[in-house]
């Protein structure tokens, strides 16, 4: 990926700018640095995605289609209908994810923002784990299964074990972490011992986890007493995350926990010996082996860490957001987290940002559906277009006529 090339361009440009004596040159140098920065590419990518989204909004809108039918007699109608459709759609997007301008009080108005943060929590946690894997050169598609196993174990410990408040929560979280870690260990150890491709094994383990959970949900121990539905009772209150902003909002302390874990993963990857080893193996496994690192053991450890984070995401869903176990507990967290990790370029703080963006986009889904009559799937299109464009900075530069970076260093991440 060209993540490194951009970073190096940004880092080296200020020096060039300050080296020149002329004030005009300096200003140009600064502009150039901004133009070549990641932030601008990200912004341009988001703009491009919103444009693509607008096209879909227009195609799906009945008023626009009707007005287009008599386009040549009254073209103004078509443009007016297009304008209304787009304003409606993005207005709904904003009201559903940030602030509901239709609400009477601030307390109600800010509810969508807290909803976005709640939805961002598991995406950040699972994305952190996937990011670790990507930087170590392992493509783990198994976050979905790891989330499921983490959630299942967290629910068992949260419901079937009695412990005092706080300890119980920590215990259930730890169980979720271990569950995910075990589900990550399997592909890791298979890759290390037999060279089994981790992409395949993790895909298969997603299905295995899903069917394992559906099977468990047929037992009485996993069902609400007196009911035969595949849905479990709520976990005990002693194992639940307390609400962060009072009972009015769904947002819980799990969100803060996710932010803390982002710090922990940053420390692991950037400051610890283990993280160095992970990055070295990712950059060049042969060189890492020559330098005396045990590459196979590293693969196992990477998968364990990645699985543990996804397991925590699952545990967090059970202990904070959902509280009861269903076959759909993981939703599409594991797959969305892949795009989150890619968008965040596998860096912890980038992943937090990407998680917040995706959390907001998914939170707006119901409002889009109700207020603008748009299917929630448009969010998927916007998400994927953003990631595609961000991954291809040269394309974005070409489309938006941004200047080429002066220095391109070829480093594969």
């Amino acid at each position, binding site marked *: *990926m060209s993540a490194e090339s951009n970073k190096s361009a940004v880092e080296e440009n200020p020096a060039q700018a300050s080296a020149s004596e002329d004030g005009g040159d300096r200003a140009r140098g600064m502009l150039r640095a901004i133009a070549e920065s990641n932030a601008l590419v990200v912004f341009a990518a988001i703009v491009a995605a919103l444009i693509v989204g607008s096209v879909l909004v227009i195609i799906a809108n009945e008023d626009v289609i009707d007005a287009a039918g008599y386009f040549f007699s009254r073209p103004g109608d078509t443009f007016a209908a297009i304008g209304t459709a787009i304003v409606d759609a993005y207005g709904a997007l904003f009201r559903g994810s940030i602030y509901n301008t239709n609400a009477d009080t601030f307390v109600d108005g800010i509810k969508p923002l807290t909803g976005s943060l709640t939805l961002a929590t598991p995406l950040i946690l699972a994305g952190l784990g996937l990011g670790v894997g990507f930087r170590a050169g392992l493509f783990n598609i198994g976050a979905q299964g790891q989330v499921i196993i983490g959630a299942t174990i967290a629910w068992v410990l949260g419901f079937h074990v009695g412990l005092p408040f706080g300890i119980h929560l920590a215990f259930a979280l730890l169980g979720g972490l271990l569950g995910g870690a075990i589900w990550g260990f399997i592909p890791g150890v298979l890759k290390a*011992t037999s060279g089994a491709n981790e*992409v*395949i094994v993790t895909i298969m*383990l997603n299905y295995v986890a899903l069917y394992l959970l559906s099977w468990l949900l047929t037992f009485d121990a996993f069902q609400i007493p007196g009911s035969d539905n595949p849905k479990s009772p709520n976990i005990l209150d002693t194992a639940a995350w307390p609400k962060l902003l009072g009972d009015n909002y769904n947002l819980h302390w799990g969100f803060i926990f996710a932010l803390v874990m982002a710090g922990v993963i940053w420390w692991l990857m950037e400051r610890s010996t283990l993280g160095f080893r992970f990055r070295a193996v990712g950059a060049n496994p042969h060189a890492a082996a020559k330098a005396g*690192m045990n590459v196979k053991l590293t693969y196992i450890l990477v998968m364990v860490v990645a699985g543990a984070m996804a397991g925590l995401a699952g545990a967090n869903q059970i202990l904070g957001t959902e509280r009861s176990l269903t076959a759909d507990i993981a939703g599409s967290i594991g797959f969305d987290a892949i795009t989150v990790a890619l968008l965040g370029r596998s860096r912890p703080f980038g992943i937090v940002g990407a998680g917040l963006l995706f959390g907001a986009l998914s939170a707006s889904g119901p409002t889009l559906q109700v207020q603008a009559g748009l299917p929630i*799937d448009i969010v998927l*299109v916007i998400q994927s277009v953003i990631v*595609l464009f961000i*991954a291809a900075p040269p394309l974005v530069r070409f489309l938006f006529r941004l200047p080429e970076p002066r220095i391109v260093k070829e480093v594969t991440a």
Partner: protein
Amino acid sequence: MTAVATPTVQAERSIWKTTAVFLSRWKAPIGYSVMALLSLLVFGFGPEPGQTTSFALSQASDAVQIPVFSLPSMLTAIVLSVIALGLAGYSTYATYAEKKVGVWLPIAFGLAFMGALLTWAGAGRDSTNVNITGMLVSGVFLAVPLVFGSLAGVVNERSGVVNIAIEGQLLAGAFLAVIVASVTSNAYLGLVAAPIAGALVGSLLALFAVKYWVDQIVVGVVLNVLVIGLTSFFFSTVLSDRPELNQAAAQMQADGGIVLQSLPIPLLADIPVLGPVLFDHNLLVYLMYAIVIALQIMLFKSRWGLRVRAVGEHPKAADTVGIKVNRTRVLSVLLGGAIAGLGGAFFTVANGLSFAKEMTAGKGFIALAAMILGRWNPTGALMAALLFGFADALRIQLGIIGSPIPSEWLAMLPYLATIFAVAGLVGKSRPPAAENIPYKK
């Protein structure tokens, strides 16, 4: 990490290494033995003495009828398990003597194991027969999208481009096929349109992966999300407003349209068992046979195939002798996309169904697994895809017989089998060397 390792660390490493070497050498015999013993204990000694299992080989419509026959369950399952044990023993001997084992061993082992499983499941159920032919027919049919998907993967990856977007290409093919078929009231035109949709997705893959050097796996994953998003969006808006654009075969036939019909091949289709299994399908299945044979020959015997493989193994060398690396890759990606798109038609027009959200349900990923199991080889991919198809058919068959195994475990079976196969039986498979590396002059 220090370069100088302490003695304890070294000792630890050597133990680690010895265990890993031992496991990687003996994993196949160990795997076979464990499964054969399981088969003997559970399936062999499971049925009560005196119970029988009845098997049906003919279907009602067949020209040559073979009567239903019954076998003593316990004896049959034990014999099959002992055969499996013998095969495990041969595998142990081959590993010891460092002999190469052919592909017949896993196939024979799989047949013995499946036979024992079916005998056990059907034991003492007088009212139901184990319908072997029906199971095989549905196995071939269920394998169709997997075969097309894995062939698409083979073509792409042989040229050095990883194709994770098979799922998206199948879905796009399914989507466009049904729309074109509905608009023109002709399912065969749907078959023509499906490859175009797949190639369109392929063109995006080529644009980002070949032209802009974006990580190929990233592009593939994101393209899947994009296609799921787009098709679901149009399904919920345009197609739900205009149901005439998304018709099932029954509806089309009622309106006088042309639908895909089973085209039995004269004479061949009358062969007992083999006839209905292989030679009594619709056009898409025959296209599948043709593409497998064509690709196998073209990839390994033609100038085009040599170029594609050269570009995938050593692009620089290929470039030196005048092969246009990126152009070859773009064309391969488009061809692969078209093949996967055609496979997508399975879900809608070939099945007689209308389009539904995310109807490919992860089949593209299974196809990816089939490609790797088949070692990037068209016939290998076909075999692996058939294995998945038969596993799926077995699950359905066991559901009909009513087996003591929970249905969730049966559903898990193909996925577990893949993990075992990838880790144990196939071992280290070597992808094309230049895979996922953009070529920059």
